Structures are given as C-alpha cells and as structure tokens.
C-alpha cells in the first residue's frame, strides 16, 4: 500500500523543551487518521512539521513523497488544510472564495468553473453562489471550508478540530464529506476533541507529552485498554501526562 505520510523519530525542540519527542508512524493512501492528545501534548507542533510550516529538530518525515526538510514548497502544493479557526474570507461570496483558493493552486479558469459548479451542487448550495460567506450558517461554512481545502485534490488534507461547535446533524454531514474524500483516495489527517469522532477514524494515534503512546484502530485500542469507548481510552492515557504546567 502507498504510504502517504511517513514519520520516523520526528522530533521538535524549543530550547530545552521537547515539544515532539521521537514520533514514528505511517499513514496509507485514503486512510482517515485520527490524531488525538490533550492540550499541549504536541499535536499542533507535529502537524505544523508535516505541513512544511516548521522544520523538525531531528528525525525524518515525508508527506506525499516529499521530504519535510528540503521539499516543503512541494508539500504545500500537495496538501490541503482546514482548521476551526480558518474560515474563508467572510466578505467574499461562496464562488469568489472557491475561485480564490483554486487560483492559488494554479488551476485553470475552465477547471475552476467546472469545479465550482460541481462543488456547489454537491453541497446543495446551488442558487447561493453569490451569498457572502459571513451570511452562511456555521455548518455550511465548515462544509464549504472543507470542500475548498480539497478543491485542488491534494494527496493529504489536514483537519485541525474542524467540527468544533456545530450541531450534531451537521457534524455527521461533515463526516460524510470526509468519507467521500477518503473514498476518492485523499488521505485525511484529523485532530478532534469529540471522542465519538475518533471512532470514525480508520486508525487513531494518541499523543501524551510529545510521544505517541497508542496507535491502533479504535476497536483495537478499546480492546487493549479494556474500555467500551474511546473516551475511556483517552482518559487513561491523558491522565498519565506529566506535562501539566504548560
């Protein structure tokens, strides 16, 4: 199977503080990979290194076949990114936002028009293309933001707590979009605070104090930690954290 993300002994130090401590894992093409951890466990730092935004202190990693040290510009071309905080330009319309982000990735005008129509109808937003993003309900915005993050059909999409604060139905609709993207072969790398969402992932890794303390399918983890849900697994692991003060 194709390995879309590989990390081996990936480490990031800030001065004497080791934010990410020799983590190693691989993610396959089309896999939905859950990345969990308490605040300050090192999730964001690890994700930044993989996105080519921050250089590792030591260790190796590749994303979409590109090296994080030398080819971070190529990595940026081949990934999509969305976070809860990332909302599109609120004073642009749906169509303008899609156009803008597709344009950044160098898509041709023709392709953009086609893609925009497909995307709008897939999201059932037809007729609203000229609506300003700030006038959309939060759930729509998040779904739109996700669609825009994968508009250039990247190899990997990084989702940083994408579903915070949305209603339970929209949250599930959002997961439908994730499944569809994964079915198209896009690898999904996601962090979340909702433990039931962790169970939707193919595999889950849990970070504690900068290390990966558990990595398996949700079912495997529940078995290993003798818990009926991921909440129990997470609490058992996160309670061991020494890094409390940060």
């Amino acid at each position, binding site marked *: 199977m194709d390995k879309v993300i590989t990390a081996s002994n990936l480490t990031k130090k800030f001065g004497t503080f080791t934010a990410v401590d020799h983590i190693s894992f691989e993610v396959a093409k089309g896999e939905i990979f859950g990345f969990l*951890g308490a*605040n300050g466990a090192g999730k964001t730092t690890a994700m930044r290194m993989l996105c080519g935004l921050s250089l590792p202190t030591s260790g190796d990693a590749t994303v979409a076949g590109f090296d994080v040290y030398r080819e971070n510009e190529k990595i940026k071309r081949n990934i999509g990114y969305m976070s809860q905080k990332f909302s599109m330009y609120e004073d642009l319309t749906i169509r303008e936002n899609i156009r803008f982000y597709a344009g950044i990735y160098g898509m041709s005008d023709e392709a953009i028009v086609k893609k925009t129509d497909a995307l709008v109808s897939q999201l059932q937003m037809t007729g609203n293309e000229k609506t300003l993003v700030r006038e959309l309900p939060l759930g729509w915005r998040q779904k739109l933001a996700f669609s825009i993050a994968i508009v250039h059909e990247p190899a990997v999409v990084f989702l940083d707590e994408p579903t915070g604060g949305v*209603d339970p*139905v929209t949250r599930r609709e959002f997961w439908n979009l994730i499944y569809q993207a994964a*079915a198209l072969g896009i690898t999904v790398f996601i962090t979340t605070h909702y433990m039931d969402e962790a169970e939707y992932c193919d595999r889950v890794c849990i970070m504690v104090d900068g290390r990966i303390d558990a990595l398996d399918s949700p079912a495997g983890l529940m078995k290993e930690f003798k818990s009926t849900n991921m909440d129990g697994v*997470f609490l058992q692991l*996160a309670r061991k954290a020494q890094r409390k003060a940060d």
Partner: protein
Amino acid sequence: MQSVTVSHLIKNYPAGKKSVVEAVRDVSFSVDKGEIFGIIGPDGAGKTSIFRVLTTLLLAEGGKCTVDGLDVVKDYKEIRKRIGYMPGKFSLYQDLSVQENLEFFATIFNTTIEKNYDLIKDIYAQIEPFKERKAGQLSGGMKQKLALSCALIHKPTVLFLDEPTTGVDAVSRKEFWEMLHRLKTQGITILVSTPYMDEAGLCDRIALIQKGKILSVNTPKGITKEFKKPMWAVRSAEMFRLMNSILADPAVESCYPFGQYHHVVFHNAENEIQKLEQIIREGNFQNGEIKPVEPGIEDCFMALMKEQGTHG
C-alpha cells in the same frame, strides 16, 4: 425558590437595513436554587445571547427575566453585585500574573482573596504554584481554572458559565465538571452552556436549544425518556456503505453514525431486526452486528431538530 426565570425572551440583532437576526425566539425556562442547569446547543443557537441578557449586559427585545428575584432591566445594579460570570473567551488580563488577576477581580467586587479563599481553595490550589506566571502563558485548562476562580471570588449566588469547556481537552473538561459538582454543594446556582452533548448528563436539568428555540427542557433522563421509538445499533466491516444501504430503505426514519455503530430508527416499530438483517444479507456486509440501544442526549437532539425543522 427559583433562582433564575426566563419567560418569552426575544433577542434580535440588526443585520443590515430593516432585517434582523433572530438570535433568541420566545425562550422560557426557570432554574431552581442550587441547581446545575445546562443550556446545550451548537454555536449560533443563542446561548451567549441568553447569558448576556441574564447578566444584564444586553437588553432583550421582549420577555421578562429575573435573577435572584430581581428584574434584569430594572435592578441591573443589584444583580451585578450578586452574580459571577465567566464569558466564552476566558476574560483574563494576559499580561497580568495569576495572582494579579485574582486580586484585581476580588477588589472590583469589593472583597479580598483571603475572605472567600475557602470557596475557591479547591480550584485555585491547582494553579497556585504558578501564581507568578502571566495568564497569557497558561494552558487552556489552567486559564479555565483561573477564570472560574475570578468569577467565584466574591461568592456569587448565581454563577453563569458560558461555554467553559470549549477548546479544553477531555481531561481538563472532566476535572472542571467535578469542580462544578463540588461548588453545587455550597448552594451556588450554576447556569452553564456547552456545545458538547456528552456533558448534558452531568447537569441536573438541561435545555436543548437550536436556532434560538428551545427544543426541550427536562432532566437528562427525562429527555431520553421522551424518545419513544426503539433505537438499534448496527455495524459491519464497511460502515459508509452500510449507512447508504440503510438510508435507502423507505421504512427507515433516520440513521446516524455514532462511534463504531450506526443508530437506526424506523417509522414503525415492527420487525426491525428482520429488516436490518435483510439489509446486511442483501448488501453482503461482513461481521454484521445488530443490537437494541438506549438513545442518548445527542440522539434526542437530532430527533428533535428534525421534528421541529430547525436544521439547515
């Protein structure tokens, strides 16, 4: 005695010329003294607006609200002396230390840290080792504890916590709820809002809210009891395809993913197992499993949303 009453509350915000956003639409509920009352709903449901009206920060367009028997419009000065409020963004001075923040809030509420130390001891003790540290350098969980200490320092009769657990990790969330339950024993009424449905069970009573409307007010158990239809949990090796197959059956009312299972409800409660077995058999799904399941708050929330047409 009722600590907080809200009756027919309406709150609108102007949005462009002549149009308004109806943030709160005719909401009524009441909170008993010493109760932990949860307002549960997604972002944009109107939680913060309700809190701001009750904390006298906003004037409502309609309805009548009281806190501690006092009117939120007329007696706002008196109410401000009695309540504790922790807004959505933890309102701390990032450039002041933990100790300086606490001291500041104690003084503006006309009290001292020493006077009410007993009340916050439990919470503050956990961050006291870092009292010289600037608030801006604390982790989410610690900021949350400091903000709670600041909201409690003047021994309020009613405590308003607006999304205190948003953006805080699961461990800190759990610890936070344990703290709230200890505070409850001191007789403080607590109103808390949250978008996390799994926190509903930790409240004495809850109001489910969506798009400015209350879907239901009851105890958590009471709400799940209102869910009359039987619910089934189904799983197989291919979850996504399974859901599409289930939804294709016209007898199915709803099917939502819940962790490793799909929760399925039928229009009519008859021969459900057979119908599900048939779907699994015909779709050639491996490792199929079907079992009855008790609906949770989230199931009820989704069912109520659908019923009252507040989705979309």
